[in-house]
């Protein structure tokens, strides 16, 4: 073999800085798990403290009669839940939230999809249009809500000015119990359509061009046919996904109600999250508030699991 030539490979040893190599340190075989624990422990502890324990606490509080600042606590079983469902305010709140979601979701999807289709139809000015329509999603909703209040002002608001100029009926939009919820839903649509639009844009980009070419050859080359044969079917999974995500966001509506109507007039714009906030933190009826929280949690978890299910299907079919 190669005798002394073996030494030449190890080069000139610089005297100054090479430390004693080949220090024999037998390190335990557990260095990998130990490093892992050190890296993960702070996060893990905080996860337990800020997520696991609180969610358990919510369930516990929901079954007691504890009131914040009070010293007594006793187990009351499902009494809070019965109170909650018996309360007309809660039922109103629940109903309002459902109506709100049922208006916001189709509206957002429809408009978002329409705008996405229009933007993708031609290459000119795509970035510009995309930016404009995405802006409401970025803006602080609290501030946008105040701006909408001005628009909807009964006397000096732009909406009523425009409507009366066009001969359309006007109203005190935010103070009329018949119109307040739909108007809030409109603001919700306005805020979310940019988000839906962007997701649809991504979905449209992912449609392979050869599908359109195949459709052309098969004779489906008008815009309506292309839509029906290729675009809408291919957007199916994305649409389902967007529906669920927008629905979750709609269920979590809070800012506009808190700033503009505080649930009024009457209970016409009372929504779940606002009820939760008020009962838990303003009235300090913590047991009751916790029960509302549990209901809210149930809805959101169901929707999230649906979302996960949709994602799984997408992964398997693609």
């Amino acid at each position, binding site marked *: *073999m*190669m*005798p002394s*030539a*073996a*030494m*030449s*490979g*190890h*080069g000139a040893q*610089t005297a*100054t*800085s*090479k*430390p004693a*190599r*080949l*220090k*024999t*340190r*037998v*390190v*335990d*075989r557990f*260095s990998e798990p130990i490093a892992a624990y050190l890296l993960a422990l702070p996060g893990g502890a905080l996860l337990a403290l800020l997520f696991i324990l609180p969610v358990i606490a919510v369930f516990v509080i929901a079954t007691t009669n504890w009131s914040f600042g009070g010293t007594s606590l006793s187990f009351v079983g499902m009494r809070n839940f019965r109170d909650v469902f018996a309360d007309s305010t809660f039922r109103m709140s629940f109903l309002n939230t459902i109506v709100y979601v049922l208006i916001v979701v189709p509206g957002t999807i429809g408009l978002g999809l329409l705008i996405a289709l229009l933007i993708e139809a031609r290459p000119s000015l795509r970035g510009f249009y995309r930016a404009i329509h995405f802006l409401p999603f970025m803006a602080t909703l609290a501030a946008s809500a105040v701006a909408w209040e001005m628009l909807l002002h009964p006397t000096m608001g732009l909406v009523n000015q425009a409507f009366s100029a066009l001969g359309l009926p006007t109203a005190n939009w935010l103070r009329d119990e018949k119109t307040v919820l739909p108007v809030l839903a409109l603001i919700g649509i306005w805020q979310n359509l940019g988000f839906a639009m962007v997701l649809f844009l991504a979905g449209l980009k992912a449609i392979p061009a050869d599908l359109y070419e195949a459709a052309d050859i098969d004779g489906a080359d008008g815009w309506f046919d292309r839509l029906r044969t290729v675009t809408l079917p291919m957007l199916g999974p994305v649409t389902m996904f967007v529906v669920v995500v927008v629905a979750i966001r709609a269920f979590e509506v809070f800012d506009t109600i808190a700033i503009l109507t505080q649930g009024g007039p009457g209970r016409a714009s009372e929504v779940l999250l606002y009820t939760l906030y008020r009962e838990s933190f303003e009235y300090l009826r913590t047991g009751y508030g916790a029960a509302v929280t549990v209901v809210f949690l149930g809805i959101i978890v169901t929707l999230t699991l649906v979302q996960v299910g949709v994602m799984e299907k997408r992964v398997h079919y693609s």
Partner: protein
Amino acid sequence: MAGLSISGVSKGFGSIKVLKDISLQVEDGEFLTILGPSGCGKSTLLKILAGLETQDSGSIFLGERQLDGLRPKHRDVAMVFQSYALYPHMTVAWNMALPLRMRRLNAWQRFPVLGALLPGTAAVRKEIAAEVSRVAAALGIDQLLDRKPAQLSGGQRQRVAVGRAMVREPAVFLMDEPLSNLDAKLRVQMRAEIKELHRRLGSTFIYVTHDQTEAMTLSDRVVVMADGEILQVARPQDIYADPCDLRVAEFVGSPKINIIEGRMQRDRLVDVAGLLLPLDVASAVGTRILIGVRPEALRLAEHASKVAISATVRLIEHMGSDVFVHVEMPGVSDLFVMRLPLERAFRIQLGEPLQLGLRPGQLLFFDAEGRRIRTTSAVTPIERRALA
């Protein structure tokens, strides 16, 4: 310096045994190739040698020092990965300097920005830069020191990976299929460069590949592995001419060796495709014997004879200087591949009947389990027997 001793190394993942009791002696300064198909455990063995995986049982010694339990950086080995594993966000110079920085600068000196201000850091960094330049020049990449990996070609990246291993001046170089991501022409060139590198450095190289050409051309010795076991350890030419297992014979040699089945007829004669061959082995009549015939072991018989094999040409492949002729022989299910020089084969036509003779002494006999039966003398066919 001394060689590597690997004793009884086993490794399993879940219920799958990837390495089964591997024992191997690597000589100091040798170029040893571990050759085998994908999944035979060779990369796992390499990772165990590097300390990136831990074996379930067995020990590894580098000279007098036991490596088991030592973290990779303390083992005095360097590794060139199949994917090169260059740090994509660092320049070539930084990629090559990193191992030296880790060894010679302590944590305070390595601290970003401020560490450079500590006393002594500047001197060490200059030293490191000089060594990096030296190695880069030796590999021909000194013009590339300021570039990032994404800006380099495959061959250049490979050299940087080798350079990063070289700067550490390790006792052992581990190479995990370093050429498999290169195109054919580059591979030939890099093979020569690696061989030259080994000659110059004289360190121990342990090279893993599934490519038999690399194994044959680069190695002092070849270790053939399959299914987690070592089949044979020998010089390349011995692996080819004297395989100890059917799997070894089939793995090395291109085109693949032809295998024909035969049966023991009466003591010491085996019946193969109507031909009787004397075989000095005590086996019962009817025992299955496998005969390996390399493509170059058959020749065109000058004239018909009682010991020639009749065959029909089914496929002709012209390779330039050689011709591969695929023939069909009576009683043999698969096509037989022959390698003939161009001047002998250029007139052969498809469908033509041929008379073939065996070169004496070039047959390899294996028993039904694939173990080699070594014969003491050259085997010449006795007579042809008409098939029933």
